Every structure is written in structure tokens, then in C-alpha cells.
């Protein structure tokens, strides 16, 4: 978990980790690979296959149903239509929203939309999930639901790096890094 005040560089760090942005200096080694040697196309491929993103502002495509949103990453990688739908339905069931598969984001609550966004992030079994304040727009009860879901995903073997300024989300088992003005100040 990466903690810090607004503007300290948490989201920038997350975007660099997710190959969405380029570092101005330093080395980034992911899974034993020096990412500086990768081309933009390779980074995009890497991101699609190994990293899932969960954003604060949900970021579902409003004109697609929940199922269509979830199967999107698989379609780009050449998975057949029938397999995509099966995998997407299984993932939707895992987040407890199989009854919402044909609903559009506007038909769902904030918590449900965030669960669909998490399902989209995990559908291709990524090594790493990057979550940028996933509970920022949610009420306390829904936020706890989302955290329980993320913890279950983590226990299943997926690494999660989450950015937040909400200290109440820290538990004793959480690896925590604090940031200030673009630099890490404390690591526990």
C-alpha cells in the first residue's frame, strides 16, 4: 500500500509501474526484465498480459454491458468469442455480480461498478494489479466490501499495489510505503 498526501506522486508512481508513463530517471525492473530496454509496443503488450488496473473513477465504458467490459482485454489478445464469454462470466461470478452481466454501468451502483472494474482487471489473470484509490468514491460499507474482494484476490496469489490516502485501510499484514514530494519516506 502506498500512502501519502495529494500531489506527492503516488499516482505518477503507479502509472510508471503500469507502463502508462515514462520515468525521467532511475531503473524499473519488472519480473527480472529491465523495462528501459522495451519499446512502447512491447510495454503495451506487457501491460495487457501482466498488469490489471483499477481506478478511482471506475472507468468502465458506458456504452458496453458489464460482460462486454470484462471480456474486452481478452478480445484484444485473440481469445475466441466463446472462451471470452465463459471466462468473463466466471470472473463476474467471482466478484458476485453474475446477475448484472447484461446491465450497463449507468444501471449499477458505485460499488457494483467498481467490482466490474476489478473483474476486468483480473480476467486475464495478471501478475500485478495496480489500484489507484479504488475506494475513494465509495461509502464506508462499500469500501470495506471492495477491500475484502481485493484481499481475496491477493490471497489467491495476485500482487496488489494500492495507492490511497486513507490510513484506516492499513492492516497489520499490509506492506506500507509512505511518500512525500515524489520520494519514499518510510517503508514497513
Amino acid at each position, binding site marked *: 500500500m502506498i500512502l501519502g498526501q495529494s500531489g506527492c506522486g503516488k499516482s505518477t508512481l503507479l502509472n510508471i509501474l503500469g507502463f502508462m508513463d515514462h520515468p525521467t530517471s532511475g531503473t524499473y525492473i519488472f519480473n527480472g526484465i529491465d523495462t528501459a530496454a522495451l519499446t512502447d509496443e512491447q510495454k*503495451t503488450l506487457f501491460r*495487457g498480459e501482466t498488469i490489471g488496473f483499477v481506478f478511482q*473513477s471506475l472507468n468502465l465504458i458506458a456504452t458496453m454491458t458489464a460482460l462486454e467490459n470484462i471480456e474486452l*482485454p481478452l478480445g484484444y489478445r485473440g481469445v475466441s468469442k466463446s472462451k471470452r464469454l465463459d471466462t468473463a462470466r466466471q470472473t463476474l461470478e467471482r466478484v458476485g455480480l453474475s446477475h448484472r452481466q447484461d446491465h450497463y454501468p449507468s444501471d449499477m451502483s458505485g460499488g457494483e461498478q467498481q467490482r466490474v472494474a476489478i473483474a476486468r482487471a483480473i480476467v486475464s489473470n495478471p501478475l500485478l494489479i495496480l489500484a489507484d484509490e479504488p475506494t475513494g*468514491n465509495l461509502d464506508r460499507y462499500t469500501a470495506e466490501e471492495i477491500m475484502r474482494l481485493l484481499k481475496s484476490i491477493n490471497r489467491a496469489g495476485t500482487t496488489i499495489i494500492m495507492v490511497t490516502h486513507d490510513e484506516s485501510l492499513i492492516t497489520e499484514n499490509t506492506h506500507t510505503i509512505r511518500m512525500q514530494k515524489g520520494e519514499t519516506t518510510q517503508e514497513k
Partner: protein
Amino acid sequence: MNSKKFNKVCFFLTNILGGIFRHRQRYLFMGILIFVVSVAVISSLIISLSAKECYDEWEKNASDKLNEYTVYDSGYEEMLIQINTEKEDYKKIESLYHSGNIIILSFGSIGIVTLFFVVKMTINERIREIGILYSIGMSMKYIFMTLLWEFTVFISCVIFTGFITAIFSVKILLRTDFIPDVINKYTASSAGVLAGVIAVTFVLILVILLMLQYKFAVTSPVRMIGDRK
């Protein structure tokens, strides 16, 4: 083609058609605009080209006829009077040619400018969608190719429909007194030439768009994705 590549192609094609369907309201507005402009421009082009061909042929025939005489021949003055009388009738055809050009220029300009802004607005509205697609692993090249093909497929279908409608409109107009009957025999060849020109222009535009695809890439996809609170 292996199955993975086949699936990717199917997915790409589905995305193009799905994108048009999902954004049908925006595309409907764009479609009506392009349809009206293409009917006006194409029918004006057919009439204008036919009028030009008709007038040029008459002018050549009149010149050839006059050249058979010398100034001193007895039939020369009669022929000159006949040609001047015909010229009065053919002035209407000449003005039809110029009017057609004015319609083409005005409708065409308005259509191109409005289309540019509609396309720009559409891309701006979909900037968030572009950011989301980038975050889930689609390359910028792929995303913009999808958008370009969406526009191209849609605009091609509308212009084709406009072309067919324009041909029928010209046939109807030929039955009125607005267009002289003499133009009738030139309209088929004009329409054929026009179809060829439109097809070649489209292929050229597609090639240019494909070459320009990288120019459309946004520099910072990060800024496309929602605001932090």
C-alpha cells in the same frame, strides 16, 4: 491464418461495427449531414459535368460547321444566325454548369468543415474510452486504427447511399423543365466518371489516413483517464 490471428481480426471488425452501433446517436447526426451534402454535391457534379460535356460538344460542332464555310460563301451568314440562335439556348446549359460548381463549392465546403468538427468532437468525447482501452493493454496504434476504420466504413456507406440517391434525383430532375432534355444523353457517362473519381479519391484518403495514424496518437494517455479527487 492461425486461430489467434483470426480471432483478433474478428474482434477488430466487431469493434468497428460495435463502435458505430454504440455511438449511433452521434453517427446518425453525422450521417444525415454527410448524406445531404453528398446528394447535393454528387447530383450537382453529374449535372455540371453533363452540361459541360453537352456545351463543349455543341461548341465544337458549331465551330466545325462554321469552318466548312468562308466569309464569302452564300450560306455563311445563315449558318452564323443559326449558331447564334442555338447559342442562346445553350447559354442556359452553360449557366447550369456554373450553378452546379457554386453548389458543389458551397455545400462541399460547409460539409467538410462541419465534418471536421464533428469528428474532432467525437474523438474528444471518446478520449476517456481511449484512455481505458490503453490501460487494458491496447496499443495507441490499434485504438486509432479502430476509430479511423469506424469513420471510414460509416462515411463510405453514407456516401454510397448518397451517390445512388443522387442518380435517382438527377433522373427525376431531368423530367422537369429545370434541366434541358439535351443533357440526358451525357448523364450516364458523367455518373460513371464520377463514380470512378470518388472511388479513387476514397482509396487515396484511406492510404493517407493509414500513413497519418501515428499523428493522431495522444501524447499522454494518463491524462485521458478520470480525475483524481
